[in-house]
């Protein structure tokens, strides 16, 4: 696109324009996603609670309800309390939204369908999601309200604690696949559902639930939504916010929910690889068929991620909220040891070459083992060429990994 614009304007302008357009597109994705999820939350919550939820706006099912809400929020007065630190108060929602938005950059929607193909994407995602807390802390501090301050403090304590088990859970699929690239991890789980990493061994099955718990906690959803606990802290960190800035916090929250669910889908549920390999042959055919297969995979992935979000919604409307000490206890006493135990267990399982369901269902090793990072292949070539001891060592490593 930059080349196209470059015909009409200076090069730097072309780049800037291109960047702006891409950013606007991705923001639209975030916005539309939030619109959908807020509508879904209201519908699901309504159904759970014997209500109908929105029914009128936009005709059937009230599917335009979030848009109407959005218009209302845009037209609302943007208030800042007199005691607030004006600059930080105004910036905080953006600080919260930006990382959650940036996380989409490295999340693959299908094989190769990713904004930025980065080799350490698991790590990058976890890192960037951890940054979202800054917006909340700043909002809590800058609002000049004690309730907000409580919310910010709680959020800081909670997120810093939960990042530990979350990272440990995320690392297990990384070790099993030998790569941090989400695209590669996803591709390694091609084939039947038995090849999904959650079914790899009992430990990965267990660790998924730990991951999900920690993910719910790290995106600040009930029963871990202590930062905004409405029955204790009025509305916590966003007590003083109104209008569009308030909605930015929610866009960030819903987007983060989608990202952690998507991450779970790739790490444990095969990403774009369905329970049944319907499109595998299309994918192999290449050309237009491959695009169709990728599109189906993309829908598959989005379906899984949305399912994860729906479970979070379901949990939110079912469970009471934990107390702050119980939240920290849950993390330190249960999640961290469990994650560490599963970490060791899963690695031991892999090391001992114990069977996983995929071995007896489809013994064809075309799945995980065939997918390798390029450097491994090159290292193997190098090992064949030189025969030096370092290369042998490496080849052995690569062998083990297989």
């Amino acid at each position, binding site marked *: 696109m*930059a*080349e196209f614009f*470059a015909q009409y304007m200076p*090069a*730097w302008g*072309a*780049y800037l324009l291109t960047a702006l357009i891409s950013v606007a597109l991705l923001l639209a994705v975030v916005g539309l996603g939030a619109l959908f999820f807020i509508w879904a939350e209201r519908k699901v919550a309504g159904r759970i609670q014997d209500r109908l939820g929105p029914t009128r706006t936009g005709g059937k099912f009230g599917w335009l309800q979030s848009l109407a809400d959005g218009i209302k929020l845009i037209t609302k007065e943007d208030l800042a309390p007199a005691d607030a*630190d004006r*600059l*930080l108060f105004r*910036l905080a929602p953006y*600080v919260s939204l930006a990382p959650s938005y940036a996380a989409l950059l490295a999340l693959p929607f299908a094989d190769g369908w990713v904004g930025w193909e*980065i*080799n*350490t994407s698991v*790590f*990058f995602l*976890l*890192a*960037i999601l*951890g*940054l979202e*807390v*800054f917006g909340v*802390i*700043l909002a809590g*501090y*800058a609002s000049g309200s004690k309730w907000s*301050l409580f919310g*910010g*403090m709680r959020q*800081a*304590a909670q*997120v*810093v604690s939960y*990042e530990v088990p979350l*990272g440990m859970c995320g690392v297990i699929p990384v070790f099993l696949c*030998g*790569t*941090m*690239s989400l695209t590669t991890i996803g591709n390694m789980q091609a084939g039947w559902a038995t090849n999904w990493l959650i079914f790899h061994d009992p430990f990965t099955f267990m660790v998924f639930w730990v991951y999900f718990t920690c993910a719910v906690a790290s995106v600040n959803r009930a029963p871990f939504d202590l930062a905004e606990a409405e029955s204790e802290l009025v509305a916590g960190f966003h007590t003083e916010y109104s209008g569009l800035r308030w909605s930015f916090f929610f866009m960030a929250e819903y987007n983060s929910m989608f990202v952690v669910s998507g991450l779970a889908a790739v790490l444990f549920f095969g990403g774009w690889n369905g329970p049944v390999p319907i499109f595998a042959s299309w994918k192999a055919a290449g050309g237009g068929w491959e695009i169709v297969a990728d599109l189906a995979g993309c829908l598959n992935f989005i379906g899984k991620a949305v399912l994860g979000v729906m479970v979070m919604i379901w949990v939110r409307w079912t469970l009471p909220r934990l107390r702050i000490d119980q939240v920290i206890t849950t993390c330190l006493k249960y999640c961290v040891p469990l994650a560490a135990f599963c970490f060791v267990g899963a690695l031991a399982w892999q090391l001992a070459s114990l069977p996983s369901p995929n071995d007896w269902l489809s013994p064809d090793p075309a799945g995980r083992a065939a997918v390798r*990072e*390029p*450097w*491994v292949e*090159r*290292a193997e070539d*190098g*090992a064949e060429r*030189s025969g*030096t*001891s*370092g*290369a042998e*060592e*490496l080849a052995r*490593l690569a062998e083990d990994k297989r």
Partner: protein
Amino acid sequence: MLAAIDLHGFLFVLFALTACVFAAGVLFSSNIVRMAFNLVLSLGSSAGLFFLAGAEFVGAMQLMIYVGGTLVLLVFGVMLTAQHRFLEMRTNAGEWVLSLLVGGALLMVLLQAAFSVSQWNTPYAQRDQVEIDESKSATPIAAALTGVRVDKLEETNPRLRAGKSGYLMPFVIVSMHLLVVLVGAAYLARPRMAVRQMRRGG
């Protein structure tokens, strides 16, 4: 036409400018929370520079540990001690003048040094041909931490080839260091004051 401007350069200027502006913001703001905020953005932008230089793992690490961990801790500390008399602590003008003079001189020296070595300031011609899967992936780093150097397969020195060029030893030392530090930090911040609490909800 686009060759006159490459993405690397453009992004470099972008990230470098934001990083420097916010670093200056840390220096010149007197409110401690704003300082922390500026520091977050500054370190985040420098993580962008890391990504740009091809060190993606280190960049993500920077985001996770530095920005996500250390700075949250810092802000936490700020909030714990955030009383109005500490929020704004101004430095007097004399100190400012002196320090800016010294700082300016130091910056001049460093810049002079940075641009004076010809090996450093000559552009790398074959940059477009560089394929750096090794340094982009986390696996070679992990391998180096366990003593295997993926990037030095052609190493001729037998001692280095035998895994001595890896980082196993420093890695272990750093791990022990971290452990000691955590214990030490916990000791330093240990409770000094105990409140006898009667009847916890009872």
